[in-house]
């Protein structure tokens, strides 16, 4: 046994004592949770198949509890965001002007329609282009007496920045079609904070239109007027019992939930994957150091795939959904 070999040379009587009293060395066995066992010729306990089964079960339980917990404590979990209407407009128009298209003007009626749509989604707890009662985007637009020849709608939720929202729309063919359509002259945005399915989040609604009368296109003054409005209304939508009322902001919305799910899951998964990768590196080092011949899967292969997972979580994966 590795831990005994050095002591044996120093004091053979201690080894005899340990052989007679095996329980006295139990405490030294703890190390083999992290290092491969030279005598049993096995991986560290924390890398055993049993441990892997436990990890899988714990992750599945955590995923399940994240689905159910918000039902009991709405608004505690959520997605922190700092999305604002002005950045959405600037980023959307940059996408258009870079491709030789005209910039969109913000229209007050389309903005009002977008805000009503967002408030309606929080009120009826849905996230879709058509509401459970059958209301379509055009119903919200027509309700504002906006007479159009073309109209469209993009939706987003759970994003943290305005740029991420616009980039996501740009990367989706159907949303890009709206974003870069030459048929639209005007746009309206809603950036609404509230609780949806128990999660505190920000819903983004983007409504496009071309007025039937070309002279009706919003002027610069009208656009500035809409953009300069801030925090125009509070609590328009009816929330589920116990949930905070939605706050409709135009200028500087920010969602700061008690627990930011996106950040929490990101750091938990990165820490856990990092911990397992460290154990796998320790496995290689200790196995080579002690010349342990064990029959198991290839550690380097496991490390390769875990590095891929860590890079994916660290660099690529971001919260946010679009429809």
């Amino acid at each position, binding site marked *: 046994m590795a831990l005994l070999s050095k002591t044996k040379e120093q004091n053979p009587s201690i080894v005899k004592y340990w052989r007679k009293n095996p329980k006295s060395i139990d405490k030294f066995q703890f190390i083999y949770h992290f290092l491969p066992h030279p005598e049993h010729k096995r991986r560290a306990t924390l890398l055993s198949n049993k441990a892997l089964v436990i990890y899988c079960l714990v*992750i599945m339980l955590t*995923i399940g509890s994240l689905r159910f917990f918000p039902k009991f404590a709405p608004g505690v979990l959520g997605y922190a965001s700092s999305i604002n209407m002005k950045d959405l407009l600037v980023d959307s128009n940059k996408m258009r002007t870079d491709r030789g298209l005209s910039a969109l003007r913000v229209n007050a009626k389309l903005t009002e329609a977008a805000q009503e749509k967002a408030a309606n989604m929080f009120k009826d707890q849905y996230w879709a282009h058509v509401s459970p009662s059958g209301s379509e985007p055009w119903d919200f637009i027509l309700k504002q007496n906006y007479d159009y020849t073309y109209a469209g709608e993009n939706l987003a939720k759970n994003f943290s920045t305005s740029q991420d929202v616009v980039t996501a729309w740009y*990367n989706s063919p159907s949303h890009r079609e709206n974003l870069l359509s030459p048929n639209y002259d005007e746009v309206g945005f809603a950036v609404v904070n509230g609780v949806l399915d128990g999660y505190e989040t920000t819903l983004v609604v983007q409504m496009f239109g071309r007025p039937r009368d070309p002279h009706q296109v919003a002027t610069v003054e009208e656009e500035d007027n809409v953009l300069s409005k801030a925090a125009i209304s509070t609590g328009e939508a009816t929330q589920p019992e116990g949930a905070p009322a939605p706050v409709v902001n135009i200028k500087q919305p920010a969602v700061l939930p008690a627990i930011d799910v996106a950040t929490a899951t990101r750091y938990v*998964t990165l820490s856990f994957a990092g911990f397992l990768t460290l154990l796998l590196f320790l496995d290689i080092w200790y196995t080579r150091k002690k010349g342990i011949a064990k029959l198991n*899967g290839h550690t380097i*292969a*496991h490390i390769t795939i875990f590095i891929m997972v860590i890079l*994916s979580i660290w660099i690529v*994966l971001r919260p946010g959904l679009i429809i």
Partner: protein
Amino acid sequence: MTEKARHIAEYAVLAIASTILLAAFYYLRFEKNALMVLFGISSGFYAIWGIIHHALESRLTKSIFFEYILFGFLIFLLLFFALNI
């Protein structure tokens, strides 16, 4: 093909596939449904790669078989958890 050359070739397949999958994750990072399919492909590929690799070495035991299945499933769960949808 020597044992060492086969070993290198098999690891090259794993490294190239991992790089391609990472690139695909990046390209489809806003398409959550596509990402879910890619996560499934990644974990399935890894489990199958490991099992075939050990079968070719005539070192495939029940324990190693389950080890690759479990590692594959674990990476799927980690990616799914991180995607947070």
